[in-house]
């Protein structure tokens, strides 16, 4: 699903002394069918921007086009309803939005709300729960009686149950332990790979995830997009990123330090353990200057 922002501005607390433009006259096009990451320090406007992508926020000024839907400040709420059917959103700490008696009912809620019969909705819910690794023994339990990691999976199953075309993930792994983070990212990536015509937009502070999974990385600062490119292009700009409070993946930090210390050229855009090892091995095997 393609996204196109046209002079998009969003102002919090308009007409008060606290008025802030969280997004400021932004022009942006994000192509569909790609895995896009948005990075930027806290307060740079990432969450405000992505909440426009499923109509949770309407522009104060300018417009945003998501697939075939255009949203402006005066767009009727009713028109945003079908948009939310197609654009799924996983917030930070999505488990805070669970509220049903049982895990199954929580996940079936979305599809039922969009017109599925109870049987259909539960069938979909069961599939989605299985996909996120929730055992059927847990289906009748309260979502509040399982571990934090499981709660988050349930919440995510609820979003996937609507079979969205575009999945927006706003810091989805915050607070999870390393194993939980790894499993969660793999889940999203598999979801994206296994289906046709799907897009993911991931907001993250984990530069490793942005580097490893994205086709394109978008850099935000002060309510605007200040750079974009492939992970390789973006994470070659360590100094620029540090200036706006960001870092490069640890693998890149290591390879750049090695390059500086040894005064020899090496491939510094490696984002996995294997690629980093390979770059170091070829550095070691290459003879130094005579």
């Amino acid at each position, binding site marked *: 699903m393609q996204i196109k922002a046209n002079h998009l501005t969003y102002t919090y607390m308009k007409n008060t002394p606290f008025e802030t433009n969280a997004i400021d006259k932004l022009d942006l096009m994000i192509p569909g069918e790609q895995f896009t990451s948005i990075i930027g320090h806290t307060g740079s406007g990432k969450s405000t921007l992505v909440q426009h992508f499923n109509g949770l926020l309407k522009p104060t000024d300018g417009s945003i086009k998501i697939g075939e839907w255009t949203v402006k400040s005066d767009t009727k709420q009713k028109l945003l309803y079908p948009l939310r059917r197609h654009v799924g959103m996983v917030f930070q700490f999505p488990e805070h939005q669970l509220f049903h008696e049982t895990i199954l009912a929580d996940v079936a809620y979305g599809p039922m709300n969009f017109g599925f019969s109870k049987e259909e909705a539960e069938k979909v819910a069961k599939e989605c729960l299985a996909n996120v690794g929730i055992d059927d023994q847990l289906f009748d339990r309260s979502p509040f009686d399982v*571990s934090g990691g499981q709660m988050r999976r349930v919440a995510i199953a609820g979003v996937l149950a609507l079979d969205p075309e575009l999945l927006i993930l706003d810091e989805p792994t915050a607070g999870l332990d390393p194993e939980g983070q790894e499993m969660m990212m793999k889940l999203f990536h598999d979801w994206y790979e296994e289906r046709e015509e799907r897009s993911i937009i991931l907001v993250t502070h984990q530069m490793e995830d942005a580097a490893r999974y994205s086709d394109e990385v978008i850099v935000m600062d002060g309510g605007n997009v200040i750079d974009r490119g492939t992970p390789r292009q973006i994470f070659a700009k360590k100094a620029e990123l540090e200036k706006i409070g960001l870092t490069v993946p640890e693998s890149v930090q290591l390879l750049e330090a090695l390059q500086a210390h040894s005064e020899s050229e090496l491939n510094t855009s490696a984002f996995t353990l294997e690629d980093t090892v390979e770059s170091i091995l070829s550095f070691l095997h290459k003879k130094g200057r005579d």
Partner: protein
Amino acid sequence: MTNDIHVDHLYFRYHEQAPYVLHDISLTVKQGEWLTILGHNGSGKSTLARFFNALHVPKEGKVISCGIDTKHANEWVNIRRQVAMVFQNPDNQIVAPTVEDDVAFGLENAGIPYEEMHERVYRSIERLGLRGLETQEPHRLSGGQKQRVALAGALALRPKVIVLDEATSMLDPTGRIEVLSMVEKLRKEENITIITITHDVTEAMLADRIIVLHEGSMAYEGTPDEILSDENALRKVGLRAPFIVQMANELKRQQVPLPNGVLSHEELVTSLCKLKPIT
């Protein structure tokens, strides 16, 4: 050296029929030490931490905080003043409309006289680098600043121990560094005992000693060098070794003769440069 926290054969479950979430925990935290409690989500870290300042009191086992057995209900206020806590979510622990009021809040509860309160509040604000923000609304601060406000509130109590329960896990990398460098400073300059609770191995590197909890039991105990260099042991308890450790191990598997115990970027870079043939 005296112990600030002493836990002896502690067992705990939330209800009579529920499974135990802490099994036979025994540990001591020395005065001035930085201890990290490392463990996966649900391993029992927060539950254990609540015993340190008598938010939980043992039915089975014993906890002595700053020399006082926590079973004595009349000592709880005193214990909580000496063992301060900072929690994960900055938004849930801010209670007052301005930074200075928020820092003063705990002192008001503790019944400190006005003059002294004033002095303590401004000293804490100063120590945490929050000067100039005294009259700001806490909600308008960054995550790192909010957690510094929470730390200033803790420091104003003049505690012997500060426990940080995943206090950096909701912050961005800059906020994380901001808070941890303040913690380091409080330990050094105020001689406060620090207990950090985390699943972030990079944060654990800062500690003097680490204990690893796994499903409510103490799985390992040791220095950061010992604990963090054991990739397999960490994986078994749902954690991951620091990136540098994983790199060093993988390079060794590829026959690169690296020394043992490489934990930092600098160490790895220096070792690799030594191995590079010059001509």
